[in-house]
């Protein structure tokens, strides 16, 4: 009998070792468990949708955004002067739109479980909360909403082979209604933003951050809107240029 207990014990140890990455990830801080280092200064490289991002397109130019008829009606009434007068000049700088606005990011750890993402354009701050953080029940909508973050974990079989995922997943809710595009293409308070942050290091030393961005909005989008803005790492903050929100430019 004792002869059979020993292998079972050893097998149990084996299984616990197999799941060691997951256990480690659960028990340590997000900062300590980070499989990639996102901290530093990053600059937008606007090589896609240039005409819709670098300048404010004409009213009614909502090409490529799968908007509903109601969203079209809202976009057709866009009035930037009215937004500014109402103190709503940051509508295109909310979480669902800010990553596509040309500018720079400064990413730091606010604490061991909170990644802070600041933007110079619009002077916004996103806080990405890891671990056991929960969205406060009484949270009021804000431009940047409430973001829950987690390091992606490779599947069980992949982990057994020693594979480590290198991506950050962020889900943001409680966003104040804003614009996906500067010319008033709207997202509603019901929108949910899901992002996957991937880091790529090239042979020439360049580092790229690509944020796959999925916006679901039952009110204003017929389909999930999928984009992936690109950022290149910069050596320092020499070009950091804080600029307040503007509804007109």
């Amino acid at each position, binding site marked *: 009998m004792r002869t059979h207990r020993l292998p079972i014990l050893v097998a149990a140890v084996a299984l616990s070792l197999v799941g060691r990455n997951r256990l480690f990830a659960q028990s340590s801080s997000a900062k300590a468990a980070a499989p990639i280092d996102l901290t530093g200064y990053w600059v937008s490289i606007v090589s896609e949708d240039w005409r819709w991002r670098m300048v404010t397109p004409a009213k009614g130019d909502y090409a490529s955004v799968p908007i509903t008829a109601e969203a079209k009606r809202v976009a057709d009434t866009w009035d930037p002067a009215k937004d500014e007068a109402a103190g709503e000049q940051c509508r295109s700088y909310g979480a669902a739109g800010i990553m596509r606005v040309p500018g720079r990011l400064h990413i730091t750890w606010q604490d061991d479980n909170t990644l802070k993402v600041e933007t110079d354009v619009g002077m916004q701050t996103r806080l990405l909360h890891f671990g056991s953080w929960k969205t406060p029940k009484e949270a009021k909508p804000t431009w940047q909403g409430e973001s829950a973050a987690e390091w992606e974990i490779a599947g069980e079989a992949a982990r057994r082979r020693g594979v480590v995922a290198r991506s950050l*997943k962020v889900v943001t809710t409680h966003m104040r209604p804003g614009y996906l595009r500067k010319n008033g293409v709207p997202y509603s308070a019901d929108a949910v933003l899901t992002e996957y942050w991937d880091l790529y290091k090239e042979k020439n030393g360049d580092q790229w951050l690509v944020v796959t961005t999925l916006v679901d909005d039952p009110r204003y989008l017929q389909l999930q809107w999928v984009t*992936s803005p690109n950022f290149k790492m910069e050596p320092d903050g020499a070009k950091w240029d804080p600029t307040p929100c503007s509804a007109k430019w």
Partner: protein
Amino acid sequence: MMTKAGLIGLVLLILVGMLIVVPARAQIDLSGDWVAREHEDWQDRTPGPEAVDYSGLPLSAEGRARALSYSASSLSMPERQCLYYPPHYVVIGPQGLKIWSESDPVTGAVLAWKINAFLDRDTVTIWMDGRPHPSKNAVHSFGGFTTGVWEGTTLTTYTTHMKEGYIRRNGVVASDQTTLTMHFSRHGNTLTVTALIDDPVYLTQPHILSRSWQLDPTANMAIVPAPCVPEAELPGLKGEGAVPHYLPGENPFVNEVTRMYHLPVEVVLGGAEALYPEFRKKLKDMYVAPPACVRYCCGWGGPPGTTGRGLNCFLDGTGRLWP
């Protein structure tokens, strides 16, 4: 009968096998039918860009001059109608991707990943078996030569030995000296491919594009497309051998985007400077938005909840439906 020590040894052996052996399999399964989400650069990828709109491209002077010589009428020549695109058309074109792997029949190791061909692009074969790239003097093909490695859960590929080919469908070309790096990252049923097109001849810095696809098992994509059959379309081109083109300074479309969208011509003609946020400061005093939408102004097409793509109007915003 196995002794206690023998039994422990066997279990430890299994344990070591579980922890150490890394089978030559995919880190993440990329296989399946992936439907394009054309929510970025939709105009470039589907109806086609304006005749001269190089915004967002880090063109060199040579690249700009070459692009300005292009006339779309050249595609009416039978020998150019079926001209292929190099592998960077994976991210430039509008198509979905069918991806599958091919394995060694003896070891089961993945030898290559493959991305299906299209009417105008060869199958992309990504060799995973560690073979080297050919000599720099080896022949270049439209398919090029691609190798891949897994970096965590991302497949990174590197392509050389391509022929020259368009990187925007209005005549902007990448040379045969171009190399291509792609990163395939799968997140659930979303696949994002980030491509860096590095051309020392026609670009001043690598051109980055990232596109996304979503898994759709009902798409039933073909591995091999129907053949492209060239045909003489314009009587005037039959048998003459002339290649439609524009001589330097004679492209009639240079000011079209400026007229339509009010973009300064220096933006329209491309260049790396305009890719960076600080360029907006220059633009601020040079740009006034058009009073109304100019093209594709009718909203999103397709029934709600479907993957119908594009807009339900075309050209001038008058509501004329897609053909």
